[in-house]
């Protein structure tokens, strides 16, 4: 059998080639400067219908689309039948943009928005440490405003609330006594002042939205 001879026409190296290029995110770039979007951490808040399967839909979306998620919390709101999901994600700008749009597409989603860098963010951690040096343990707890939740001859358990950074610092300091167990809730957050956490993301707000500058989130308290 003869091999297929294909089609006629100028070969690839005989063709003109364009000057431009795009980066991995499909954005046109100056071929000289390889611009890349660095990932950043941000908080996305979604108001959703409180119905079975919502959480599965959200977590399924994140794993399916390989979005980098740091934490996800969910809880009821003041309105019956509505829950708020707070997500901390780490993605480059185009990824964050996609996350917001894909979340908005889920049928139970009522409003989705990215919070401002100054939003109030809080997390709760329960830290169970060895209580061999009770005075020192108490001093550290005091330093981080940690509340004693439980104590036994061998252990002391504290509740710490605050921004992620504070909790991490507290855990690190507690670790000198030997940490037995930790449970953390993940970050929950609200917008400040009259800014409405549930305000929907405006549709395509600017032609160059994906290129916009962002400000580093201010560390909370």
């Amino acid at each position, binding site marked *: 059998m003869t091999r297929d001879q294909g089609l006629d026409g100028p070969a690839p190296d005989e063709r003109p080639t364009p000057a431009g290029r795009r980066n991995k995110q499909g954005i046109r770039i100056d071929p000289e400067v390889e611009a890349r979007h660095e990932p950043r951490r941000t908080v996305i808040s979604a108001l959703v219908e409180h119905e079975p399967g919502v959480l599965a839909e959200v977590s399924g979306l994140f794993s399916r689309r390989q979005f980098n998620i740091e934490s996800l919390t969910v809880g009821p709101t003041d309105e019956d039948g509505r829950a708020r999901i707070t997500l901390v994600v780490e993605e480059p700008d185009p990824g964050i943009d996609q996350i917001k749009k894909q979340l908005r597409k889920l049928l139970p989603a009522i409003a989705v928005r990215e919070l401002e860098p100054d939003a109030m963010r809080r997390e709760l951690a329960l830290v169970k440490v060895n209580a061999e040096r009770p005075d020192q343990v108490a001093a550290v707890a005091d330093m981080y405003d940690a509340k004693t939740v439980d104590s036994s001859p061998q252990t002391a358990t504290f509740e710490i609330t605050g921004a992620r950074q504070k909790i991490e610092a507290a855990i690190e300091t507690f670790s000198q006594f030997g940490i037995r167990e930790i449970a953390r809730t993940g970050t929950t957050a609200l917008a400040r002042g009259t800014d409405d956490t549930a305000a929907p993301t405006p549709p395509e707000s600017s032609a160059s*939205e994906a290129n916009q500058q962002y400000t580093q989130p201010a560390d909370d308290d």
Partner: protein
Amino acid sequence: MSERAPPVTATEEQHDDQETTREEPPESAATEESTTDAEPTPVTTGAESVVRALENAGVEHAFGVQGGAIMPVYDALYDSEIHHVTMAHEQGASHAADAYGIVSGEPGICLATSGPGATNLVTGLADADMDSDPVVALTGQVPTEFVGNDAFQETDTTGVTMPVTKTNTFSSEPDRVGTDVSEAFALASEGRPGPTLVDLPKDVTNAETDREPDEPRTPDTYEVQQRADPEFVDAAAERVEGSQRPVMLLGGGVIKAEASEVCREFAIEHEIPVVTTMPGIGAFPEDHELSMEMAGMHGTGYANMAVTHCDTMIAVGTRFDDRLTGGIETFAPDAEIIHVDIDPAEISKNIHADYPLVGDADTVVSQLAEAVEESPQATKWRAQCQQWKSDYSMAYEAPEDEPIKPQFVVEALDEATSDRAVVTTGVGQHQMWACQYWTYTEPRTWVSSHGLGAMGYGLPAAIGARFAADDDQEVVCIDGDGSFLMTLQGLSVAVRENLDITVAVLNNEYIGMVRQWQDAFFDGRHSASDYGWMPEFDTLAEAFGAEGFRIDDYDEVADTIDAALAYDGPSVIDVHIDPQANVYPMVPSGGDNGQFALTEDQL
């Protein structure tokens, strides 16, 4: 059909809850001669409200397979005007519904029982999801009190189908079940279309209810933007006016939005060359001078040159799939992109949109048409495009002493049919030849599995298309031998329903597309791609009761095709083609569209 007694079926139900005995509706005697315009009888059960929801939505055909958990719904269908097509396999039901949706523009309906029935639907749902085709799937489910207990034929259907449906619902209330179906119907076609599914536990469909379903309406949280921001439209219009090398890229969304007409007018008025994606085939007449035909992996050389060298791309209803773009880095690298799409999530997902125009394609292209006052100065560019059309002509050699070239068969089928003939395909080389060598001029005449690439799509799709198409539209399935083998049990359906469809199997006794890749990228090692033997598809067709034909030589092609098309019922032509034929041009995965290969050694 035959007078054989129906086979005795062993009952599948181990958990059948038969306590709900239904009374005959009081008006049942009167409904005997009832016509469609007669006042419908009130619903008495969940199942009846499910069927009523379909009737209210104007459903005329449904495709499915019976089974334990869906029996109440089928029982209600028994009294309905809806024509139910009993399929041979649920995959066929979902593909048929998908094709029905593509050709008619209205959601196609498929039904299956719980467990294996529902899982068999999944391929067709995934296909519809990838291609944004409107489909509604109704699946039976075990009674709610058994759910979660691993009951007989229990599958977490909403869980399994969540990633491959636009939305799905587990319907738990007899008073809501009809409305759930209405809502699923509305959601399947409104905004960006897609498959929806309603899981129907048997106790819910069996339960008594007199609740009529609500009108098909999308829920309040579902918002669709129809018109694009006028500011962006103006900016885009200015860009179009100032462009020197403009291209329109029409995707499947153009056809779904019924925007082919406005896109044609716009392109012709401003003399802008038009490229389509694979699902966009038919959005623009391929015999028009401005048509560059399909771009992408197996697109024409001239389409890929136009896409690579344009300075402005008006992309409508496309998601910039990787089979279209090749490597992102080299896709239309000099172009500013005007992206029209109804789904904001498609904007800048793969390719950055310089001008994001969110909205319905018909509305937004009309807005754009209004805003563009001057045609771009692109005389040189158009001449260049014409030059590429002749430089990279799709002409192929067909020596008389070699086996039949598949391209010739596709052209002969096109020649023998009308402009509005509907083409369905399997997946593989034959599918690409069907794209390349058939000249499409009308929307909704090209029916294929684009995003999922599901072998076996062709025959069930032809069945669905047949019910949706007009009587004077021929339905031709251009299939591969491998693809046909996956779903050819559907012939039994085509024969039973006496469907006038013609299947042309481009038989290379190969998993041809895989063989081509092995020759190019795996040193010609034909691992699991060489069938070496195939059943005689013409004889097989006869065994099903269809008409079988076979072609081995060029001089049989035209007459045999005519005879097969003339046969009033399903016919199958087993066309023995050159097993070495390859699909060109070709852009290897992730490659540069402008560097498409015309021969194997260019890969």
